[in-house]
């Protein structure tokens, strides 16, 4: 990923199949929907980010692939027409996610953690919430240049608890 643009236009991932990736995008849109200026997850690189994490961290594979599988199974139960999670209405999607959250809390939590991580490390999201992307070299330089007003300490100087001589 480069430092300036959103990752949403990047090619498909290496661990997740195209079907898994599109399921993940649909799931993430329920976890982090758009709201005002804040983009929905699918408009960011959150899904590709999770795929990258899966490529780098084998410890994430069981929980995240497990969560996606559990969502697929729960969808099949709720959706005899087999339209797939992405085609259900929002209320049905949320019901499925709540169900998986309750039945597979550890896997679901892992999926949520990595979704939030992918979402809030996307430059487009950082720009919306006012965080430099990346943090360096700019930082928040001006705050370090304003000088401290020592008069603020007048009361403390006058009333401080003494240290014990020893």
């Amino acid at each position, binding site marked *: 990923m480069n430092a300036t643009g959103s990752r949403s236009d990047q090619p498909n991932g290496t661990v997740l199949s195209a079907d898994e990736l599109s399921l993940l995008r649909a799931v993430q849109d329920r976890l982090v929907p758009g709201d005002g200026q804040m983009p929905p997850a699918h408009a960011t690189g959150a899904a590709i980010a999770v795929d990258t994490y899966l490529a780098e961290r084998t410890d994430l594979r069981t929980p995240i692939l497990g969560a996606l599988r559990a969502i697929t199974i729960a969808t099949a139960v709720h959706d005899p027409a087999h339209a797939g999670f992405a085609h259900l209405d929002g209320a049905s999607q949320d019901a499925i996610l709540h169900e998986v959250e309750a039945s597979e809390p550890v896997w679901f939590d892992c999926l949520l953690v990595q979704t939030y991580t992918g979402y809030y490390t996307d430059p487009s999201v950082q720009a919306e919430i006012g965080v430099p992307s990346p943090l360096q070299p700019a930082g*928040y330089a001006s705050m370090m240049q304003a000088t401290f007003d*020592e008069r603020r300490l007048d009361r403390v100087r006058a009333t401080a608890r003494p240290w014990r001589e020893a």
Partner: protein
Amino acid sequence: MTDQADVLVIGAGASGAAVAWALARAGRKVVILEQGDWIDPSTYPQHRSDWERFRQTTFNRDPNVRKLPEDYPVDVTDSPIDPLMFNAVGGSTIHWTGHIPRFRPSDFRVKTLDGVADDWPLDYWELEPYYDANDAYIGVTGLNGDPSNPPRTPRTFEPPALGATGEAYVRGLEKLGWHWWPSDAALITRPHGTGRLGCNGCGPCDIGCPIGAMSSAHVTYVPDAIRHGATLITRARVRELVLDDRGLVAGAAYYDREGHLQVQRARVTVLGANGIGTPRLLLNSKSARFPTGMANSSDQVGRNFMFHPVAIVRGVFEEHLNSHQGPVGALINSQEFYETDPARGALRGYQLQLVRDSQPVETALGRGPGRRLPWGKGHHEAHRKEFSHGLTIVVMAEDLPEAHNRVTLSTTSTDAHGIPAAKLSYTLSQNSRALLDHGIARATELLKASGAHTVTHDRLTRVAGWHLMGTTRMGTDPSNSVVNRWGRAHDVGNLFIVDGSIFVTSAPVNPTTTIQALARRTADWLVEHFEEVAG
């Protein structure tokens, strides 16, 4: 077998680097063995947009999470707190937040004043010049004149303005009439030293400072020690110390970068491997003379382990506080509850380290399952209300030494070289519990006085084992201590220890400035007495 050094230093962290620098500067031939590598400044996460994800992996503070080849596991099944550290050139100061209050005089006289633990075999005034020299050398930001502490020399740089975050704290502190003072911070606000830039307030110092503004060992003592002629060997993991037939330490056996076993000989060996790494190394150095580990005739190696038990108390405010901006750990320190007050139902005291708050991902994750911000429709609203609207107070209690809190060797796990890992057995004492409970109530009161509409807390924060102390403690009696007042092992005359292991008590403050002052004091003594003690 390599050339004999005058001094072998094990560990290039806060203490090892300071002692190596002082001895190299005095003309001694110094070799440093460090199991980690240099961190290339261009690889710090803050240079990337997705920096926050590295908190979960390679820049995590917990070796059991990172699991890098240079890390060693610590078995924490018997500890409610996880020990945190980093294994690289610079050691744990790669991750520290540079909050550097000093001990007070009373911290060296705990037995005399409060009837518990032990007195140190030295006092504050003996250490004071080393505190001052260390501050002046590494570069610190702060304000001298705090009447609640002994006077100190002018700080290198003045603290920045309070900003919205500091103003919110001060609002409450002034209402309550409590002590506060801008934190003494081991960081620079303008360029200082070689290639170090002034802090630009980017925020997450706890994953390392990419511009050298934090006064960590790898940008201060280590490069200077090398300039003075010290040899640093990285990716050199010490397996054990080697004893000669006179009962002196002859050097150390270590695995080099290629995994070959080497021996570095030295006339004096100094350990700076931290409060867990040092006892681990001694316990792994068994011989006919020391069947339970080197320098362990007292059976004190590994015992009396102290953390600073921590409870995090967090307040959420209506106003936007910019609290994700600025060096996260160094803002304001309140020492209102520092000294013993019997009314608290506990001996000794605690500090309130008033710090900044979470970054975007951290905010969403909300410090652990059950605290995640809700997903779905309400998510953004919740994030908007929390992000940069929080203040975090670290209630940091003094821990007292207890023999049963100890580091031993793991019988089930090893590091990548097959060396037994460390096991930590620790229980929180009733005294520490009482101090934390008192601190949680006071921190809550402060946040409310500052205007927080919601205050939450951890009773005991698990991922807060930043400070590792006490496992080879100092003392005058060789039957209940490991080193003498100079950090010299009672049992082995040319073996010295300079890290937090030698602490007798922990005081309620971050330890590193005290660790470095002690290391420099030991170095000065060694320079003067080298021929008397060297093998």
